[in-house]
Every structure is written in C-alpha cells, then in structure tokens.
C-alpha cells in the first residue's frame, strides 16, 4: 500500500518535472522572473515624451486584451477560434505594421499607433477609449511575452524623404514601378485584389489571406496617410505574403508609387489631386506582362 503511493508520488513528480522542462520551450517568464522584469528599466516604453510602465497595464490587459490575445500572449484567447485573421501572437513578436525593415522588431511608437488605429478587416478594434498613457503602458506590457525583446533591439526605422509635389510625371512613373515590380501579381492591374496569385495567398501559418483591394474603399492595414502607404511596401507586412520592396524601389520612386496607388482608390480624404490628374491623363491599367 505504502509502496504504491510512493510509486504514484514519484510518477507524479516525474510527470511534473517533464512538464516543467517542456514549458520553457515557449519561454514564458516565471512569476519571480516577471516580478524582476517589472522592476527593471526594460519594463517601460517610450513614445515621444510619454513613458509607459508595464506594471500599470497588467489589469487593463486582463480586462481588454486577454479574450483574444490570451493569458500567455500567444494569440490563443478564448475568442481566438472564432476569429480570422487570428489575434497576434506576442510570443513570436512578428508584427505587420512597422516603420522598421522586414525581419526586425517594431518600435514602441509602431505598437502604440497600432493600438489606437486598430487593424481594418480584422477583429482588432480602434482602441481610442484608452488614454495615451494607458496605451503606452500596454506597449510596455506586451513586450514581456517574447524573449526577443530581451535579445534584440527594434530595427532602425526606414528613412522617408519629405513628400514631393504630386505631378502627372510622378503618377506615370509610379505606374511604371507598379508594372516593373509586378504589384499586380497579387493586387491585380486595377488594384482589385484579383491578380493571378491572389487566390492562393496564405499567411506564415498557412491560413488563407486576402491581398488588399484598393478599390473597395477599405482603409489600408497600417494607416491611411501617404507616409503609412509608403511604409507598407518599403517594410513589408511581416507574417503575411506582402514582402519588402526596399531593395528594389528607390526612396524617390517610392513616392511615385504612393501617388499611383492613390489613383486606384475611390475618392477619399487623401487623393483628390491624384484622381484629378489620372482622369486628365486618361490613365489605363498596366498590362500584365
């Protein structure tokens, strides 16, 4: 009898040991490590003159974020099964909206902007109910989910030259870039997300994903301004099929492309001049070759 319970006990112990060994594979901080980290300077974020403190965000995270992003920040909250695209996995720390090159961590400001902006065509809402300080606190908090924030520095933001004047020449040059680097392979010659490769696109985890449709009036994923669109194709949307074109589009040409992409969108708050010039030019779609 006694022997049996001893055996059971040792079995349990060894099972616990195996479990304990398996857990660090996902690099979750222990309670002690988390406390240590919370008291360290790493547990802050800096956005302009705002400083965010991770410990202030523990409760808001549980209240507002856990349902989708999960207790462990792995994107497996209880709502996750119902969502598509899936909530971000903070453990991998791969983010779409960055000002930094592909394959690097985003800046604090990038994450701060994403919280306020929300992600169009996903279940990430516009969190404009938070104060600036609360947003900064959440940015600091989500960084404890991935060991990458301890090992790597955020990438250096790409340099964006001042925006030039929109001209007919620049729009035509932008169209040439659109044809040369073959944006239309996925986005289609008219930007309708119906290029030859559009139907088979998958994200990094193999789930089907749609190319951006310029013509349906939806907001671009990472912000609506000209600079936001510039950043999208020069940094890529990591975790998705959208690559970085920074090796193959020069900064000046990148502005040309932004202006041409504006002509594909329906009238909005940003593209009056581009639409007018395109109409005057009688611009035809690029030929798919």
């Amino acid at each position: 009898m006694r022997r049996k319970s001893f055996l059971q006990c040792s079995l349990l112990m060894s099972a616990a040991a195996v479990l304990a060994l398996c857990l660090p594979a996902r690099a979750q901080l222990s309670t002690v490590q988390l406390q240590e980290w919370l008291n360290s300077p790493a547990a802050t974020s800096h956005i302009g003159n705002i400083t965010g403190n991770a410990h202030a965000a523990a409760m808001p995270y549980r209240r507002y974020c856990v349902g989708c992003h999960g207790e462990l920040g792995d994107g497996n909250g209880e709502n996750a099964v119902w969502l598509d695209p899936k909530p971000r996995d903070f453990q991998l720390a791969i983010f779409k909206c960055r000002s930094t090159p592909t394959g690097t961590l985003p800046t604090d400001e990038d994450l701060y902007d994403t919280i306020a902006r929300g992600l169009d065509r996903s279940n990430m809402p516009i969190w404009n109910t938070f104060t600036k300080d609360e947003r900064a606190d959440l940015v600091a908090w989500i960084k404890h989910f991935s060991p990458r924030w301890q090992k790597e520095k955020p990438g250096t933001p790409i340099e964006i030259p001042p925006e030039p004047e929109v001209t007919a020449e620049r729009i035509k040059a932008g169209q040439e870039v659109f044809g040369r680097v073959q944006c239309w392979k996925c986005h289609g010659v008219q930007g309708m997300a119906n290029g030859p490769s559009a139907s088979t696109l998958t994200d990094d985890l193999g789930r089907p994903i749609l190319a951006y449709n310029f013509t349906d009036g939806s907001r671009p994923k990472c912000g609506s301004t000209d600079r936001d669109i510039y950043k999208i194709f020069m940094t890529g949307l990591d975790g998705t099929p959208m690559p970085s074109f920074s090796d193959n589009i020069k900064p000046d040409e990148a502005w040309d492309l932004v202006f041409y992409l504006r002509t594909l969108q329906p009238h909005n708050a940003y593209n009056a001049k581009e639409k007018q010039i395109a109409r005057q030019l009688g611009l035809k779609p690029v030929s798919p070759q």
Partner: protein
Amino acid sequence: MKKQHYSKFAAILSGLVLVGFGALSLDQNVSAAAEGSIAGTVKFDGTPPHMKGIDMSKDPYCVKQHENSPITLENVVVGANGGLANVVLYISEGLTGNEASAASSNEPVFDQNGCQYIPHVLAMDVDQKFKVTSSDQTTHNIHPLPNAMTGNIPWNKSQPPGAPPIETSWKAPEMISVKCNIHPWMHGYHAVVKGPYATTDKDGAFTIHGVPAGSYTVTAWQEDLGTQTAKVTVAGGSAAKADFTFKAK
C-alpha cells in the same frame, strides 16, 4: 675542454629533436583538419512516391521556361540505382569546435530559376554568408519561415526581374522552409547546421570535408522522410564511410 664540447653538442642535438617533434605534431594537426572526411551514399528503398506535376499556369513566364520539359515537385528525388538526392548530412555529435569552418571558405547561392529553387535544399553553416539570386524575368518574393523562437527571424523580400542578390546568413541551426507567395508551388529549404556538412547529389553520393580525426554521430536529414544517424570514426587524414537507406513510407 673536450667534455664541454660534447655537452654543447648534446644540447644542440636535443634542441633540434624537440623542434623536429614540434613541427611534426603541428603538421599532423593541420593535415587532419584539412584531409579528414566522411563519404558515402544515401539510398531509397522501395517504390519512390509519386511526385505531382506542377501547374504553373498562374504565370505564363514560368510555363514558357518548362515548355519542353515539364517538372514535378521535389519532395523525394530518387536517381539512378536508388540514390536519394537533396539529403543533408551533418555532424550531430562529437564536434570539438576545431573543425574547418565552411563559413569563410565559400558563399553558397540559392537561385530562383525557371520558377524553381536551385538547389531545392541549400545546406549551410551557422553564420555562413549565402546569396539569394533570381535568374528569372518575373517577380518572386523570397520568404523564409524559421521559428522565431530559435533565434532565426522570418523575413520577406521581393526580387523583381534584375534585382540585386540578397546576401545574408542564419544565426541558429534549423531546417528552414522557404517559399514564394506569388508562385505557391515554389518551396525549398535552407538547412542550417553547425560545423561541416554535405548534400547528396542526384546519385545519392556525398562527402563531408574538413573533419578532424575523432568519433562522431552523422545525421542524414531528408525533408519528407525524416532523419537517420550513424556512428563514424575518422582516422587522421582518411575518408570514413557512412551509408544510409531511407525506406519508403
């Protein structure tokens, strides 16, 4: 006087002998690192699985490159006499750190050619520089998908026609799946290993160069068929033998 002379002579002689031995042992170290190798063949036993043909109709340029020679997937490529191609061989146990590093000697190239990856599997050392090039007149995006937890970080870059090569390296050993989202059939691997390595040719033959004398475990990795290991002892300067057979699933 004569005795003194004798002792001087003995001192010089012993000095010479010491220097000689020193030179000899140095020489041995150098030649062992340069000449030791592990060679063998990897075979496939059974009926090779059917490799599907590739429908490239999404991109007329790709179709044109293979008009007269249709191609198939390359998950399992079996050559003449059952030799298995694209198997990566590396030393999984017994490395001492004295091995000749491939990192400085050459820069492997991963080319996009005819809307295929050439080679299908590119082996490399940790931190070894390699190049991604495109010989095609169509846009590719090169999208390696390592697990971000290993230390290798996924990235995604486009290579339109005439794009300059991408030169980079990987930080940690990992079999990294690489794909092109524009051409969904394009799939290959960056096999990042620690230390000397080899990849089998179309007949399944391989030679791992630069292995110093010692006892090792060699691992053979094939993308669909998994891994196999063998114990090998390399004597100074000679080629040790290691053969592998993967059975049909």
